[in-house]
Each structure stands twice: as C-alpha cells, then as structure tokens.
C-alpha cells in the first residue's frame, strides 16, 4: 500500500495544529530587520580581531564577543538592537552613550509589566499609539521612557511588591545599570597582568589610562593616580593607551577605517604584552564563533529534517525513507555531539551545570541511548522507533534553547561552589540521561495512541465525530489543566484573571468529562482495537527471548503494530525506571555529604520520586489490565508530563534547593 493511503485524519489534525501554532508564533514574533536599515558605521566596523582577545569577568576568562553577549543580554534580552552585533553595541554604549538615551534598548520580559509601563507612559502622553504597538510587540523600551516621572513612580511601586513584580523590576534596573558606560568600562578587564599570572585580577583600559605616566615610587603612588602596574613596560603601556584613545576618537567620529586599524592594533598589542599564559587564541575565536552562531542550537533544523523521513518509515513502513532518515539523524547527532564538545572545550568542564546545558545534554544522552538501541534492535521490527524518538526529543530540546534564549540562557558561567563535586557528574548525568530516555519512551507511546485512534477509525468501533472530539478534548484538558495548575501554584506570570479562571475551569472539567465518557463507552464496546492488538510484548525480555527464537512477539511471523510500539516503549520504560531510581539514589548520596541529609523533601526530589511512582504504577498496571499496550502508552505519556513538570515548573515556579539545574 502506498504510504499516502495510510494517512489518517489524526495526522492531518496534528499537522494542522503544529502549522497553526508555528504560524501564530511566527506572526507574533517581532521582525528584526524590518525596523530600520542598519547603521552604515555599524556595518563597516570589523570586530573580528576583538573576538580573539579575552576578558576577565565573573571569575572566568571569556572572549570579548562572549563577554559582550552576556552583558547585552542583560540589557536587551533576546533582542538585538537594530541588527547590531553585541560587541558593537557594547563598545558603542561605552563610547557614544548619548546615542542610546532615547533608543529602545531595555528589554522588559514580563508582558504585564510591559503593559503597565506603557499604560503609565500613555497616560502622561509621552508616547504615541504606534510606539505602544511596537513596544508591546518587541518589549524594548528606551531609558528615557523609563526615566519619565510617571514611569519611574510606577517602577518604584512595582518594585515594592516582592511577590509579583520585584523580580521583573530588578531586571529592568539591572539593565539600566549595565547599560551605563562607566559600568561597562569597569567590567571590561582586557589587560592581563604582564607577569603572566592570568589568575590575578586583570586591568581595565581605564586603569591603564589613569596609571600611565604615574611616577614609580611609593611616595607618589596613591596621590590622585593609582599605582603603576607592576612589570608593565611604560612604553608599551603608553602605546596601548594611545591606541585606546585613538580608537575612542575614531569611533566617536565614525571613521570606520581608523576604528578597524585601531582595533586590530589594540588586539595584537594586548596579546603581545600578555605573555605565554594568555588563553589560546583558537579557544577564544571558537568561543566567539560559538556564540555568534546561537550556540549551535540551529541543529534542530537537521533533526527536523531527520524526523520527517523517520516518521514516514515508522508509521507508513516506507523503507525508502528509512535510510535517508537514519543518515540525517546520524548527521544531526554528529552536530549535536560537536556542540557539546565545543562547549566543553570553551568552558573547560562537561556541560551539565545549568538549565541550557541540562536540556541539550539530556537530549544528547537520549541520542546515545537511541543509537545503542538502534544497533541492538537493528534486525527487529523495533528499529527506527528509537532514532525517531531521539530525533523528535533532540529537536524539541534544541528548539526550546533556540527560541527561548532568555529562559534557557546559553551563557557560560562558573559552577557555584556546591556543584564542585564528582557527584555532579555521576548524579546529574544519570538523572538527565533517564530524563532523555523518558522523553524517548513518550514517542512510541504517542504513536501507539495514534495507532489505536486509526484502528478505531478503520474499524468504525467509535463514531467518527467522537474520534475528532477525543484528541481535541485531550489537548484542551492538558493545556487548561496546566494553566489551572499554574494558577493554583500562584505563578504570577501565568496566573489567570477571574473570568478566564472560570472559563478555564469549565473547559478543563468539560473536556475531562468527554474523555471519561468516551473511555467508558469505548471500553464497553471493547473499542481499543482487535484482540490481537492487545497482545503483550514486554520490553527487554522480548528482545532477549526473541533472540533465542523463544516466546516473544519478535519471533511471530508478523508482529502487530501495537506490539512493536509497546515493545519499544517498554524497553525504554525499563531503562528509565532503573536509571531514574539509580539517579535518585546517587543524588541522595551526594546530598548526604553536601547538605547533611540524603533526602530533604525538596520539590525537585519529591517530583523525581513522583516520576518514579508513575513508572512504578505503569509496571504494575501491566500485570492487571487486559489491554497492556494501550495503558502502557497512556501512563508513559503521563510519566513524561510529570518529568517535564519537574523540569520546568519546579525549576521556574517552585524554587527549591536545586534552583540551578
């Protein structure tokens, strides 16, 4: 049968839903380039040489590009200012701060605060309707607007509300502070100590300028000018200072050629003076490249390219798509691996210490698991399912990192003191690996649900209209349940107003009732597929037994689709069951010597336990129900949801001791 003949309405529904969502998000995304053509000077300036020099900040040595990116993201969040590079904006803010007084550079992330600010500004008549529309869309406001009396008073008031808005106001204030030219120059410690001790505090250009020409004796040191820098040759210092001053002048006069000459000269002078211990130029260039390229999160596109043929091959048994899909998946995984290695090289540690790293590394671990399982099951009907699961999960993880750069900030910082332990590697990797596997298990489980839907459609065991209502009710129940939960958790960003609360509650209970009624009537009719579809398949046991030609669905002549999905789900569920449990124990061992208690009922711990409980229920429900495959898939999806709740809601809403990962 041709593959397209197997397409069912559910597939079209899913595709339409995805396309609609992407279209809606795309339409509401601010257009970056549309606003104004880039400044000619900004285009002409070449900051490439600065990408090779290091800045000492936050206890690390990072490339100037990465430094600028870190600071500019504190000011303008995920937005770029008129298409300028972060490095350019950083220096421009330092050299020509007056240009930024009335430009929209401060990002207000919280939509409610954004709205309040705009309301205050509109009431005092300082902005037009066009401004309001633009600002609402982009979230960027000017410092001048924030300094308006009415807006200033509002921010002061919002800052006093420690529950709802103080955090957002702190972010605005820090953006104002960071964009101050004095702060930016204080933080730009470019000059390594000339004696080669790169771990000592570095010097700012301001310090060099101030101390240049200072007499080198004790009596005069401290008289107005700071003491001279030990070991720095006066002539070299003078040269640096004059290069810096020339750069500053050229920048202010917008002489791009001179700026480029001075930047190149300055970069080479700094590296020349610094000595042998200076961080490798290759590493710094790579770091700059890495951050310029969105931390390589665009790899999601390759995963997307792999997902499509893999889906075709798994669902429609289209063998031609299989090879293409696998090759693309391996290519994507290769890129994914290289992002990890690059990050490892740049930061000097395995990437698993912040949310961005946890999410991307977890997806990568899922990929490793998938490749191993693909190898093990290469001659069984289970093949491709794991690759597909991994491709979908990695795509989702990297998309999240790509589209939510504020929440999943890819900045590289030092680990906090509590994380400096070998158990960070053992416990965290085990847990995120198990999360990766739970994610993988969700895919065959979803495919199982789709398959059951299609069976019901083909066998007409459930009226077709109801088959449309079912998935919609499921989505509505899930989404509204989530919003209601956020409301119950008192998350200000997602809390509901009175009217929506009522609507949401109605939608939730309504769709829940639909699901329950459908489920009751379906089970009465035995609608969950023909009897043969209910066959249990087992996880690893079926693989092991099947190898010897024993009693396994794999040895059957034609295993059913249900059995294949169920087998794949169970292989993954079993793995995650063990890994999650082991990871939790490892966490307890670490907590025992780090916090003095193996278990403290911290929300993160409790929800890891809850995830485990769900899988525990799954395994025991299989002992009792008739249609194991169906129930396994439902509970596996539920387990994935609880895991995601633990990762997202517990981290961002319910703060506990595990606030860093």
């Amino acid at each position, binding site marked *: 049968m041709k593959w397209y003949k197997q397409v069912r309405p559910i597939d079209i529904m899913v595709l339409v839903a995805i396309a609609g969502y992407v279209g809606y998000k795309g339409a509401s995304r601010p257009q970056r380039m549309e606003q104004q053509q880039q400044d000619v000077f900004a285009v002409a300036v070449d900051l490439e040489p600065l990408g090779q020099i290091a800045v000492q900040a936050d206890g690390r040595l990072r490339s100037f590009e990465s430094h600028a990116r870190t600071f500019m993201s504190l000011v303008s969040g995920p937005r770029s200012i008129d298409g300028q590079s972060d490095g350019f904006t950083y220096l421009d803010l330092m050299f020509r701060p007056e240009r930024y007084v009335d430009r929209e550079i401060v990002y207000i992330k919280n939509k409610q605060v954004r709205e309040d600010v705009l309301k205050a500004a509109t009431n005092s008549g300082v902005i037009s309707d066009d401004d309001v529309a633009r600002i609402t869309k982009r979230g960027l406001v000017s410092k001048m607007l924030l*300094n308006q*009396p*009415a807006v*200033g008073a509002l921010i002061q008031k919002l800052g006093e*509300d420690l529950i709802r808005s103080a955090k957002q106001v702190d972010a605005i204030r820090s953006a104002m502070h960071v964009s101050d030219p004095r702060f930016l120059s204080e933080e730009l410690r470019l000059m390594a100590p000339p004696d080669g001790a790169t771990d000592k505090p*570095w010097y700012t250009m301001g310090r060099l300028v101030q101390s240049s020409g200072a007499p080198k004796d004790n009596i005069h040191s401290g008289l107005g000018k700071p003491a001279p820098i030990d070991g720095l040759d006066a002539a070299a210092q003078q040269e640096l200072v004059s290069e810096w001053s020339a750069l500053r002048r050229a920048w202010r006069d917008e002489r791009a050629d001179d700026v480029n000459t001075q930047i190149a000269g300055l970069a080479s002078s700094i590296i020349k003076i610094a000595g042998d211990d200076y961080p490798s130029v290759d590493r710094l260039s790579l770091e700059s490249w890495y951050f310029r390229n969105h931390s390589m999160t665009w790899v999601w596109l390759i995963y997307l390219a792999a997902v499509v043929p893999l889906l075709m091959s798994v669902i429609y048994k289209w063998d031609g798509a299989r090879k293409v899909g696998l090759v693309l998946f391996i290519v994507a995984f290769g890129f994914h691996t290289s992002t990890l290695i690059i990050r490892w090289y740049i930061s000097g540690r395995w990437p698993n210490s912040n949310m961005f790293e946890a999410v991307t590394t977890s997806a990568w671990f899922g990929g490793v698991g998938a490749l191993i399982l693909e190898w093990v099951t290469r001659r069984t009907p289970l093949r491709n399912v794991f690759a597909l699961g991994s491709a979908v999960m990695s795509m989702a993880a990297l998309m999240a990192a790509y589209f939510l750069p504020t929440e999943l900030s890819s900045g590289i910082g030092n680990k906090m*003191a*509590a994380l400096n332990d070998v158990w960070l590697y053992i416990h965290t990797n085990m847990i995120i690996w198990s999360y990766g596997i739970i994610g993988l298990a969700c895919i065959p489980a979803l495919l199982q649900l789709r398959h059951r839907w299609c069976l019901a459609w083909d066998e007409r065991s459930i009226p077709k209209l109801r088959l449309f209502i079912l998935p919609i009710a499921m989505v509505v129940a899930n989404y509204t349940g989530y919003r209601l939960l956020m409301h119950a958790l008192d998350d200000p960003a997602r809390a509901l107003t009175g009217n929506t609360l009522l609507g949401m509650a109605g939608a939730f209970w309504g769709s829940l009732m639909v699901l329950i009624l459908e489920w009751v009537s379906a089970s009465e009719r035995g609608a969950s597929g023909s009897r043969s579809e209910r066959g249990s398949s087992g996880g690893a046991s079926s693989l*092991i037994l099947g190898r010897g030609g024993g009693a396994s669905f794999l040895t059957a002549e034609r295993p059913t689709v249900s059995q294949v999905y169920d087998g794949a789900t169970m292989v993954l569920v079993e793995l995650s069951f063990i890994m999650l449990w082991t990871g939790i124990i490892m966490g307890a061992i670490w907590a*025992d010597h780090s916090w003095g208690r193996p278990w403290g009922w911290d929300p993160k711990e409790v929800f890891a336990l809850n995830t485990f409980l769900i899988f525990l229920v799954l395994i025991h429900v299989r002992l009792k129900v008739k249609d194991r495959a169906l129930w396994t898939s439902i509970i596996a999806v539920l387990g994935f949801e609880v895991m995601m709740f633990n990762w997202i809601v517990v981290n961002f809403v319910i703060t506990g001791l595990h606030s860093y990962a």
Partner: protein
Amino acid sequence: MLHFFNSQLTRRIIYDHLLFFVDAPSCYPPMRFARLALWATLAPSPASHWVDPMTKSASTHSAPRRRGFLAWLLSPFSSVWFGIALAVVMFVYCSVGSAMPHVRQLPYLEMTEFEWFHWWPFNVLMALFCTTLVVVTIRRIPLRTVNLGVWMIHTGILTLCAGSYYYFGTKVEGDTPVFRRRLLINLPGANEVASLAALPGNHTSVKVGAAAWHFTVQSTNQAWPILSDEHKGEMAYAVNVQVTPPTGPRFIRQLLAGYPQYTEDIIPGKGRAIKSIGRKLVEEQLDISLDLQPQEYFHVMKSWGLFVRRVGDTEWQQRPIHGLPRYNDRVGSRELVFTDTDGPLPIRPIDLPVPQGEEGDALGSRSVRVVGFLRYAQMGRRWHDGDGPINPVADVNIFSDHGGSQHEELFALDRSRRRSTDGIISFRWLNDFAATAALPRSAVSTLHIEVPASKIALDVPLTPESVVDDNGPFTPIKGTEFSYRVATVANDLSMGDGRFVSVAMVDVKTAEGQFRRMVADTAERTKDMHGDDPNPHAEPKRTAVPPDPRIVMTYQPESSPIILAAYPGGLFLVVNGAAGRTLGRDIEVGESVSLATGLNLRVESYWPRAVGDVKPTIVAEHRRQRKVGEMFSMIRLEVDTGRRVEYRWLRFNQYALPDDTFVYGGRFAYTPEHMRLDDGTEVEVLFSRERRKLPAPVALESFELDTHIGGYSGAASTIRNYVSRLRFRDGGGWTEPVAIEVNAPTEFDGYWFFQSMWDKPPRGNAGGGMNYTGLGVGNRNGVYIQLAGCCIAVAGMLFAFYVKPTIKRRRHDAARRRISPGAGQAVPEQTNATASETVQV
C-alpha cells in the same frame, strides 16, 4: 498472659493467621519449610488434636480450614490494584505537599515540608504500602530463581523504608555560627582577664582601680601579608584593637592569629611604634592575645525555644516551645498589633504554656505562656494627638518627580531625632510665630564675634577652610588687640543627661597671651579655658573660667538646608541654601511645596502633642522578603511575675547568643526583653530556636575563601569553595585542625559538620569579613541501611528486566535441545514460565 499464649486455642488461632502468609504458593520448598517451622513452633504439644493438613502428620483434623480474622484483614493487601491505588494516593499526597506549600501551611495544619511528610496520614500510607509489599510478595510471588528480581526490589524497598524510619525518627539537624577569635585582655591590677569577641565594632572597658582602659576592635583582616623574617609572604588573620589608656594618647594594637611574636602597636598619625618611639609596644604591661572562641551549642532547624536567665548571668536556660505555629498569625485582639494594609486580620487566639525546661531556670515554676504569634512583623510606632504636653512630631515626605521619595519622621523636641539622618531637613518648635523671623538664613555654621570696646561685630562662616586645627594661623580682628583661630567644631554632642550642645573651639590671642574658648550654641555654656600646657592631649589640666567679657562670641551651628518649624497654630517652612534663604512660608499638612525643580516636600502628618503607641506591625504579604525564614517572627509572651502578669513581644533570634558583642553590625539579632519578678530578680527572656549541646565544643582555627581567577568580586560566581578549619575540644586541649569544605563534611562523635554559611566581606573591603563560619550540624543514623535497600532494589531491577529473560531463554534453549530429537514432548520450564508470567515483573 503466658497461660493465654500457651493455650491450644490461642496457638491455633495464631497458626491459622500466620498460615495465611504461607498458604497460597505452598508448592515450592521454602514455603513448605516455613510452614513446617510454623507448625513445629506453634503445635508441639503432644496433646494436640490438630495438625497441619499439608504435612498430614495426623489425621484427626478433618474440618475445612477456617480463614482467621487476620487473614480476612490482610486479604486486600494481596491485591496488586490495592498497591497501585496506594502509589497513586502517595503521588497525590507528595504533589500537594511539595508543589502547593500553602495547603500544608493552612492555619490548622501549620506544617513544614518535613512535618507534612511525617504526618500520620503519610505514615499510615507508608505502613499500608509496606504491608502490601510484604503480603503480595509472600502470597503471590513464588520464591524461585526467575522471581529473585521482584523479591529483591520489594525487599530493597522495604529495607529502604525501615532505614528511613530509623533515619527520620532519630534525625537531628541544626546549625551554628562559630566565631574565629576572641581577645583576652590582661592588665596588671585588673580583677580578671577580660574577654571580647574579635568582631569589628566591639568594645569593652577594663577598670584598674579607678582608672578605666577602653578597647575597641577597629577592624579585622582575613589576609594580612606578613613581611617579617622567615614568615614573609604568609597570610595571617589580623585584628586591630584601638586602646584608649586612662592617660596618654590612644594607640592601635595589631594582633596576628598564630603569630604572637609579631604583635605591635601603631600610633595614629605616626605609624608603627617601633619607628617613632623605638619599641614595639606603647604599653608593655598591657597583654592582649587572641584565643579560639569555642562554640558549645547548635540550634535545631525549624524549632522554637524560649531562653531565660537572670540579668548578669552569662548562660541561658532554655524552654523548648512545642506547638507554636509557623505560617499564620495568631493574635487574640486587633488592638495588639498594627497592620500594614487595611485588609482583615483574622483573630485567632493562642494560649500555649511554655513549661520549665532545664534546671535552675530563673522563671522557675511561674506561669509562662505564649499568647500571640506573628509570622512577619516589625515593631512600629504610630502617633496620635493626645492632650498631654507639647511633643511635635511630623511625618515629612521629600519626593522627586521621578518617583523617588524619602520619608522622615521628625521630633522637634528630641535633639537626636529632630534632623533627618542625612541632615537635609530638621524640625523645630517655636514658641510663637514671631520666632520664625529668627530662623537661620543660611545653612552654614557661623561664629559671631563682637568686641564691645571697639564696637566691632563680624560673622565668620565656618567652612572647612576657616577651621584650621590646633596648629593653624591666627586671624587678627582688625582694629582690636585680638586675633582668633577656630580649632574645631563639634555639633550635637550629647551631654549625657538627654541634652545636647554644639561647640566651636576657638583659640583667642590677646595682648596677655592666649586661651581657648569653648563657644557653645547657648551663652551659658560658653567658657574660657586657661592653661600653659601646649599639649593638646593635656586639656583636662586647663581650668575653665567664665568667658572674658572683652570679646563676646556666639556659635550658630550649621543648620539643615530645609527647616520645618512648628509653632502654636501652624507650620512654617524655610529653605536655605549656602547662599541664603530661598523660601520661607507657612505650610499646611498635605500640601506639596516645590523645593527646587523636580523636588517637592509634603508634610504627610503632624501631631503637636504626639503620643506614640509601640506595637508590632504586621508586614503586608507582598512586602515580605522571601527566603528570610523566621527572621521576622515574633511571639507575645505572658509571664506571671508574682506581682502581676507581664506581657512582652519578643523578636525571633536565630541564635541564643550570650551577649550583644556577637551582634556583629546587625548580622545577628540579639533582642532579649527584661522583666522584674516579685522577689526583685531581674530576668531577661529571649525567643530563639531549640538549642542542643554539640558533642564537643568546636572552634574555628581559620576560614578561607577559595576563588576562581581574578579573586572574589562580590559575585557568587567567583567563589570556588569555602574552607573552615575546625578544632574540637578533646580532653583539656584541642584536636588538630580538621578542614571542612563544601561537599566535604567531617564527623565528630556521631555528628556531621557541614559548611553552610559564611561571613561575606563587606562591599569594597576584600580583607574584611570571614570572621565566622556557619556550620550545619546533623546526625545520619541509618543511611547505610537506606543505601543497602536502594542497592538491593537496583540489583533486583537489573535482574528482573535483564537476567530473568536470559535465564528463561537458556531454559528454553535447553528444553528445545532436549526435545529436538523427538517432537511433541512437553516442555516443563516453558509451562512454568508462562504460568508465572501473570504476576511477574
């Protein structure tokens, strides 16, 4: 009782019930053995008329076997569905307790996370879960090789539960600050060696006869580089003590922990004593040394305690408080508190007795009760107009158009509080409106000089340039014989009796010589001081005489640029710049007056005869800082002193510190309340947490911060590690230092010590801070049982998922090999495996 147990009937019943566990899968050997053992234990009597039907060792028993009560009771526990239901209930219970803290914090629950997960419903749930595990495992899962995995998982989880029961049942967890050093001050002739915590700002006096020495800890430095001798380059912990002897100039003694040989004095303005006076110590008989500051106690997490002692005692006696709420305010009357908002205040009284704890408690058997609890409040004073004496109080708001504002509460008759802290505004009381004309017309201090004989009068503005110190030049007063020199000015000096004086010290040169005049802001306090000793430190030797009438001086101290004056019937506002007056007008309460472009002033409230009420103010929910724990909690204590019932609001103190020398610039709260008992005893009470003795006193040898490159910048991301080196009291001495770090605790006598808090260096002072470390203290009984349980479960999971199918496959293969020569033979292993599959994992 024994008879009861020995009776045949009882034995029979017990047997029947226990049989329940072992009757179902009685076909396999271990259960047979258990059954036989049971029978042998309970039915050994030769007179027995009943036998185990399976052993068939007697045939007198023929009636069908009854299921006992216990069997009936336990039958639901052998259901897998029951176990699943329990897991689901546990999921819901955990989710509610963890993700919805406000549920467990409801007024009638009042539970911490720990308490929620040790509440009886959870314990019951766990007990049911464990029972199900035991019953299901024994009844439904035959103990055979293939089922070892499930048995191991279930046994592991049961072991974990048992370990956890022991662990959480005996868990003690707390924390304690350990300070780094104390000063031991030994003066010949003093009664005792004085001790003082080496924390900046601490001061003490030591009396030797009638004379008093004053000591102030000026600063500490955690990384003082040693420049001398063989220790050059090493870093030491330095403490600088300012010493004020009864006579002679002040000096600073620098002490280095671990290097007593480098103790030396520094003379302010002159540098090291050895350079200016030729010897290291200014006062050689003064012996100050640094000693370890032992800590004997720790405070239990999430607990409450009341501490009592007689005034003058050094040791607190504690009374643990049980049953005190933690999250919800409990007050019996609206009158007892102020609230930050107008919202309703639920009235929920509390009356909790606090019985005597340790022996020798100063309150003895008197009734002590907690009659109020506030989760987050601060003592606040609110004013209302009374009909008592004049006491003008004004609440003034200075605000900018940009939204910034500064609130000041000013007291016209209280000299210490009539000016705002930054000095920008002051509040005065005038007897009538006419006096407003006499308000100063400039903000600068002035010295008014009159020489009546020459009819000369001049106003000298006292700017920093015109105050010239003791050695500055004299300024002649033209047309007179006098010249003057302003040595110093000092404003608002406390006279100790509640009065204040501002003075300018002016040296006056006359034809006869020179004298010093103390020109006060009130004429009656102005005095001349004559004496020959030019040494400025010898002032006491001068004799004070009434001022020389030939030259008259008055001192007008600097005034605030903004003066708010109250007079009977109104308020008057004056704004003076350095150049003179820019504004002088009446002002109404609530009226905004522009002071300068963009800057306004409004008198929010004004009470001419203010009477203050001091009560705790409940801070509105949205203004509460998060993560401060109980720091702002308060209790209302009721004590029957014998004479009458006394009430006190007590602020929460994180630790029951011995005295206020550990307050350390406000880092720690120390707020005891005093009361007098009927027998005249003065006692003090303090509200803190339950305190326990450490297994041995602990002291902090050193405390280091390990940083990432570039050193500590104030950001947490620059810190790599904290290292506390501890010594424990061991017999009469101290153990060798033991380092504890983040992730690397140490154990001493059953308790584990963890690095948990630190003394952050103040901003801009990298050498400061690090004067104490915060230790977490706790026991960990049973963790190895827990760990063993977990490991058994892991092994079980691996077995069940991966080993069991392998075994089954091997049996399968073997069976196939056996039957391959001939077809149609039965495969026993295969059958068994299929039969048991329904109940296996």
